[in-house]
């Protein structure tokens, strides 16, 4: 084998390298790499970008939100199908944690632990986090679930094949298979109400205004006011799902 043909002089190596690097730089300036853009700004940076705020201090656990969601969206009445539900966390004096959600809190709660054993107790309303980088959307094999420009994760009922992959992919347990339709079903943030300029049913109904709904891109929105004035946190931040459901006074016990 002739060594000379494969040998590259130092000068030629730098020449070729410079040409290649500048070529990549020019090409990337013409069509920016989407992945880098995504990290720099949220996909809905221009229009509306809906988010949710929940004040745990204000929640009285009446379960009206869970009830309203079931009635507004025709969710099956069985106690294991929920788009929105409430959990009661009770941390006892001995450090053990009790999580209760009798039929999702639709009919309210009763205190099951006597007062003298409770260290602290609170309600946590739960619903779809409408993640910006939602795991459920990423795993769908047929493209039947997607994120709209406003940041709402929706399901295409006609296209869903009911494979249940998204149900187990959601780290917050916010999806279920609809027993009649056989397709995945989840919170749509009452998309049909938003289009009429109304709030989602659970936000409309909350008697203590513990739930705040708004546009994260609008600096004057109620939600941004809430986020600025409280120490808010999302559930499972280590998963980097881009969750847009912000809790005030969230205890680390909540999962």
């Amino acid at each position, binding site marked *: 084998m002739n060594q000379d043909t494969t040998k590259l002089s130092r000068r030629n190596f730098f020449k070729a390298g410079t040409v290649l690097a500048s070529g990549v730089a020019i090409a990337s300036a013409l069509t920016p790499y989407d992945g880098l853009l995504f990290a720099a700004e949220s996909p809905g940076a221009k229009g509306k970008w809906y988010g949710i705020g929940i004040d745990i*201090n*204000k*929640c*009285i*656990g*009446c*379960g*009206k939100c869970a009830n*309203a969601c079931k*009635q*507004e*969206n025709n969710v099956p009445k069985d106690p294991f199908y929920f788009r929105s539900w409430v959990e*009661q*966390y*009770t941390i006892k004096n001995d450090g053990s944690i009790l999580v209760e959600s009798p039929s999702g809190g639709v*009919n*309210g*709660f*009763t*205190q099951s*632990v006597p*007062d003298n054993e*409770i260290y602290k*107790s*609170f*309600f946590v309303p739960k619903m779809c986090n409408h993640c910006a980088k939602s795991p459920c959307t990423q795993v769908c094999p047929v*493209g*039947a*679930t*997607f*994120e*709209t*420009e406003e940041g709402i994760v*929706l*399901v*295409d*009922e*006609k*296209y869903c094949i009911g494979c249940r992959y998204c149900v187990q992919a959601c780290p917050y347990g916010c999806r279920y298979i609809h027993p009649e339709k056989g397709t995945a079903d989840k919170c*749509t943030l009452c*998309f*049909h*109400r938003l*289009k*009429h300029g*109304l709030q989602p*049913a659970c936000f*409309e*109904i909350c*008697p*203590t*205004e513990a739930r705040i709904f708004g546009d994260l891109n609008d600096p004057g929105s109620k939600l941004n006011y809430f986020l600025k004035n409280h120490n808010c946190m999302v559930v499972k931040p280590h998963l980097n799902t881009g969750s847009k459901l912000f809790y005030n006074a969230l205890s680390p016990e909540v999962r």
Partner: protein
Amino acid sequence: MPQHIKRLISVFAIFIVLFLVMRQVLKPSSFGKLGHFRADAIYENTLKPMHYTIADSCTKCHKSVRAEKDKGFHKRLKCEVCHGPGLKHSLFAEQFKGKELPDSLKLYKPGERKDCGVCHQKNAARIKIQFDTINTTMVHQIDLAEHNPPDLKANEPANCIDCHNPHQP
């Protein structure tokens, strides 16, 4: 080119053409317009029926109740919190003015102890801090087992609304 390669190429060509034709037929027209999903599904999601209305539509008829409620502790509650979804109710009333409502459209009238207890039954997890807005009141916590318990022998229900007006508690 050898014969077997030519045959292989033609087989591949047939499969690729078949794939393209099938893709054209089977793929929904709006798929891929906005991303890896059917763009029409966004519109289809807006078509679902509504059940909850907005508070103002109640006061078109029930003015006196609203005036009563505005003076009491329940002034910030929307009617549908207790009475349930009322869009059909209000649409019927708007369309057929003065007509009797059919029973199916009549809204729920809460009055039993458990209805009030949903918010007011004593619970350690219920609100512990005061509201930071205009009306600085807590949600009253009442132990339903102790507060005027129903006399089971006399068969008297002892409902909350016997003493408290729910619109002006």
